[in-house]
């Protein structure tokens, strides 16, 4: 069985990583928060740490910032295209060339916006004139020039978030860490700030590492995402790869929706060549699939709803079943098909109105390279 589910994407691996996290582990008493985590983050990347609560993503972020000390492993920052390497773990939080934007924003309530933003520069011992110039500049970047004199409690949630961001980026850190930056905002503001964050990251040219539990947020903002679960990195890849080529069942389930069919994989192709998958449903049909992760034996076949075609003509069938439900969403509709021997109905999404009635016998088909054989991480202890 595959015990190392890490699969690094090599899209931008040619440059020296800015931040290199190597084999970092951390345990509290008996609970393991981080288990042998290794991630490389590249310059100017918008990187997301994604996972359900308790997966270790915040612990990792705090370890980079200096508020948690890992038990083992190393975290280094490479300056000047790798000519200079800084061991972050040897430095206290106030000496690290990274800044953290807190989930609560942690704005100093007894200081106005300008003072809040200037705080970090004052600590560097920068000249007053230069501080003023830098603060004015960053206030303009986040469009809060007219709020410079306001106290944090006089600002809206979105404005507070921008002050917190300004306070962090005014220091021009090598790396900006953001802990659930949008979770305190309401839905509408959140959508605006998603775009805003992306724009700002581009504008200031700082590498962003965002922690989030919201997969849509991560998918829409990040260049690359590390999916974490139980303290382990499940997969590091760009959003499209995560969606179309998940490394295991956890990632497939966490990113987007899909139907999972248990079965047996007999051929380890390791490529995108179609291969056979024997499903554990009545009749043990052999289904078209690909096996890029080289899985052998008991495994799971994942199908995204938009890849499944529904036919009335049962001759083309990969699987046959009965329509149990149809949902119309305006632009598209979802048909739920019950397959004998499968616990949950198989979902198929088509454009337009539902083409089949509830109770109708239908056949399902898909392209082999849209059906991926995955390691069943949920059954491994």
């Amino acid at each position, binding site marked *: 069985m595959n015990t190392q589910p890490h699969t690094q994407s090599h899209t931008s691996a040619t440059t020296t990583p800015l931040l290199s996290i190597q084999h970092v582990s951390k345990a509290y008493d008996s609970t393991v928060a981080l288990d042998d985590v290794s991630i490389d983050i590249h310059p100017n990347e918008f990187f997301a740490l994604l996972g359900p609560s308790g997966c270790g993503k915040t612990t990792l972020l705090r370890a980079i910032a200096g508020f948690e000390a890992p038990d083992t492993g190393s975290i280094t920052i490479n300056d000047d295209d790798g000519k200079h390497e800084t061991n972050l773990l040897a430095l206290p939080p106030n000496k690290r060339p990274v800044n953290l934007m807190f989930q609560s924003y*942690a704005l100093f309530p*007894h200081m106005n916006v300008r003072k809040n933003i200037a*705080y*970090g520069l004052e600590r560097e011992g920068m000249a007053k004139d230069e501080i003023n110039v830098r603060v004015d500049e960053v206030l303009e970047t986040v469009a809060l020039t007219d709020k410079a004199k306001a106290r944090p409690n006089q600002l809206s949630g979105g404005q507070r978030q921008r002050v917190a961001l300004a*306070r962090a980026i005014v220091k021009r850190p090598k790396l900006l860490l953001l802990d659930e930056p949008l979770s305190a905002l309401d839905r509408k503001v959140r959508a605006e700030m998603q775009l805003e964050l992306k724009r700002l990251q581009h504008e200031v040219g700082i590498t962003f590492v965002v922690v989030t539990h919201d997969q849509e947020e991560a998918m829409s903002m990040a260049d690359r995402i590390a999916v974490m679960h139980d303290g382990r990195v499940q997969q590091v890849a760009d959003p499209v790869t995560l969606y179309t080529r998940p490394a295991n069942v956890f990632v497939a389930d966490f990113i987007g929706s899909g139907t999972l069919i248990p079965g047996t994989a007999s051929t380890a192709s390791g490529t995108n060549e179609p291969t056979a998958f024997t499903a554990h449903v009545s009749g043990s049909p052999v289904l078209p699939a690909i096996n890029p992760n080289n899985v052998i034996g008991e495994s799971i076949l994942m199908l995204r709803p938009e890849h499944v075609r529904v036919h009335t003509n049962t001759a083309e069938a990969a699987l046959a079943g009965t329509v149990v439900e149809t949902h119309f969403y305006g632009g598209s509709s979802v048909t739920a098909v019950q397959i004998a021997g499968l616990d949950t109905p198989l979902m198929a999404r088509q454009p337009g109105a539902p083409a089949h009635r509830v109770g109708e016998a239908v056949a399902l088909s898909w392209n082999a390279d849209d059906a991926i054989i995955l390691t069943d991480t949920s059954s491994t202890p």
Partner: protein
Amino acid sequence: MSEATAQATRAKKRSTIGWLRLPLIVTYAFLYIPIAVLVVMSFNASKTPFVWQGFSTRWYGELVNNELIREGFINTMIVAISATILATILGTLLAIGVARYFRSAIVEAYSLTPAIIPDLALAIGLLAFFSLIGVTLSLFSVLLSHVVFGMAFVAAVVIARLGQTDASLEEASRDLGAGATTTFFKITLPSLAPGIIAGALLVFTLSLDEFVIAFFTNGPSTPTLPIVIYSMVRFGVTPEINALAAILLLVSFTIVLSAQRITRLTDAV
């Protein structure tokens, strides 16, 4: 739904006081009539304290000229001001230590004990302790004793305040490049300021009219104001005492009200 509405109406009815206004008035009368009598009588021209003979500020004048009272007042001020400063510093540090670095319910309970145990027990204990280590009883021993319970009151108020402040403020300060000392003075202290000020004012008012502990731990030559008043009252209540009590009342009221105002104002921020 209608059930909930009916319940809400009933709750609203119950919240209007109705006939309960009567016990409320009686209770307030019980609390404040003695105080009112005291204040009124302090402006009485008569020498017998409880017979009204016309308005006069004579007793306030006599008060200022009374050597004993002036001396007691100065002693009390020395104790109250120094005890407030010491208790505030120590109590704040104690609170931060207990709440941030040594999370333990037992330690926290022990830090608050001097504020809770009976004054008499504390007074006897302190007296025994002072004679054990050979400290001569003086204004200084009163000061130390007031610091003991004052510190506990400050710690109680500041611990409550610490519970309300966002612990990530200090982390944010560290993250932005501040060392531990800068963080303490620029972030921790200002965010605790309302609690610290409230605690300090509380200690000041408590120390101002503290009798039992001062009685036990004071030396014979430096009586504080409450002790002076006690020795004067033993020979009967004079109108001077009324005037003095009225002044003390005014001071305590002002301090308590301003403490409340400061905490409310800074809490809003």
